[in-house]
């Protein structure tokens, strides 16, 4: 066991939990109506609590238990067999379990952005828990648990496919099944607090250091480089998105800048262990520009109310970064070099295949899970509740009291 690596992963675990609580929760809460601010915070918080128990019960085992190329089995349920002295790599296995748990928390929490202001709370909780067990945990096993995608040579250092593609596709499917918010697209209300969104985004930026540099699972040169490319990509994404806004509106908005930052971060995530600083710069710019355009398309062209743009920013960003990794991993472009016997082309094939498989898997299963759950739980609240806002109706609370 390595004390230094342990120290850094202890820290990274705190940083990644911080990304969801309160980071992502605030990022999303600022973008909805004031009457739904608490429901969004509650969605993220409840997901964190319930998924943690699910991960402890079976999730971790499915993802990292021994087993076959498809899943890890239930041998490590409730951490059975994992004692205080168990080691995973150079760190305690309990710590590895915790670090991975924070990923299992934030992934379904990302999906919260697809359905706010109209979904029923009990559906959110039930769906998220089941989704982590059935959709997410197996994918983790395939990519990071020695499963078949790992064997194929898929490069996904910190979760472009595992986290962002799964969440992005599932978000899109849920948004289509749930239907748009009342008044969408022309009469939905603007973000009630861009400031909250910026605070959350800032926490995401900081926390992402734990997400990407922590994925090195060591306090070493790889972690240093991962942090570097992550930061450069975030900055480049923010600038790229803002430039797009400046061109179109002659104004750069705060919400736009932070959204571009998240796009840059989602894009660099799969690449953060493979590419060099220049690669980070290119991926960030690409992420900012492409995600900006897709955001417009999904809402305006396709009229899908993926309310907070989970698919356009995370799904697309994660997939884009996964593809671009095939190029920028090459030493010629400043990366760590392609794997033995891989060419840019062959690597690109692997990356694309991985994306497709995981996208289909996530989309189909999400549709099935939601369809089944709808039989037992309220999927969408009634119109009066939606008009009044979910905070008071579903949680008996109000976000802001004046008189």
């Amino acid at each position, binding site marked *: 066991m390595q004390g230094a690596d342990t120290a850094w992963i202890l820290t990274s675990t705190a940083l990644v939990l911080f990304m969801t609580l309160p980071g992502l929760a605030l990022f999303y809460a600022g973008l909805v109506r004031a009457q739904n601010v608490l429901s969004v915070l509650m969605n993220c918080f409840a997901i964190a609590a319930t998924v943690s128990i699910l991960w402890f019960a079976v999730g971790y085992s499915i993802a990292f238990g021994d087993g076959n190329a498809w899943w890890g089995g239930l041998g490590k349920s409730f951490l059975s067999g994992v004692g205080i002295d168990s080691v995973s790599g150079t760190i305690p296995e309990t710590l590895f379990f915790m670090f991975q748990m924070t990923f299992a928390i934030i992934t379904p929490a990302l999906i919260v952005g697809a359905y706010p202001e109209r979904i029923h709370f009990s559906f959110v909780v039930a769906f998220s828990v089941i989704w982590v067990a059935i959709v997410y945990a197996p994918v983790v096993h395939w990519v990071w648990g020695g499963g078949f995608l790992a064997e194929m040579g898929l490069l996904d250092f910190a979760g472009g496919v595992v986290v962002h593609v799964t969440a992005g596709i599932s978000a899109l499917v849920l948004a289509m099944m749930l239907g748009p918010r009342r008044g969408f697209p022309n*009469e939905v209300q603007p973000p009630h607090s861009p400031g909250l969104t910026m605070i959350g985004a800032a926490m995401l930026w900081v926390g992402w250091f734990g997400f990407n540099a922590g994925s090195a699972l060591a306090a070493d040169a790889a972690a240093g480089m991962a942090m570097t490319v992550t930061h450069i990509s975030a900055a480049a994404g923010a600038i790229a998105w803002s430039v797009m806004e400046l061109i179109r509106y002659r104004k750069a908005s705060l919400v736009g800048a932070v959204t571009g930052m998240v796009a840059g971060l989602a894009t660099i995530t799969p690449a953060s262990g493979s590419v060099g600083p220049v690669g980070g710069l290119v991926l960030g710019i690409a992420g900012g520009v492409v995600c900006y355009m897709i955001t417009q398309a999904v809402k305006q062209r396709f009229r899908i109310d993926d309310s907070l743009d989970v698919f356009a920013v995370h799904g697309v960003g994660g997939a884009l970064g996964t593809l671009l990794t095939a190029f920028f991993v090459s030493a010629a472009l400043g990366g760590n070099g392609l794997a033995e016997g891989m060419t840019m082309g062959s690597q690109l094939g692997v990356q694309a295949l991985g994306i497709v498989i995981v996208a289909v898997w996530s989309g189909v299963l999400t549709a099935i899970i939601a369809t089944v759950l709808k039989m037992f739980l309220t999927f969408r609240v009634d119109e009066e509740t939606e*008009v009044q806002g979910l905070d*008071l*109706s579903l949680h*008996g*609370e*109000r976000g802001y009291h004046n*008189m």
Partner: protein
Amino acid sequence: MKFIVAIIKPHKLDDVREALAGVGIEGMTASEVKGYGRQKGQTEIYRGAEYQVNFVPKVKIEVAVDDDVVDNVVDAIRNAANTEKIGDGKIFVLDLQSAVRVRTGETGSDAL
């Protein structure tokens, strides 16, 4: 001239604004208010303590109009604000003695 004060449900504001435009009213003033009446507020509960919310959010619209359009305006507001549910609100009509447009000093109907 008359000074019309209408209390409506918040999400009806845009409908009412459009309805007023429909009868040629291009100016109004709105504000957030809290209403108390037949419609009761929901209780809030924090750590087991229940808080009866007596006042529910409403929007107040104030619009000054010429005498001849008062009825159309009242009807327009009524139709736009009506959801047939308790709490839809009220429309009050007061007499308006004079009006002045700050910018130009115009008075009476011209000021509206």
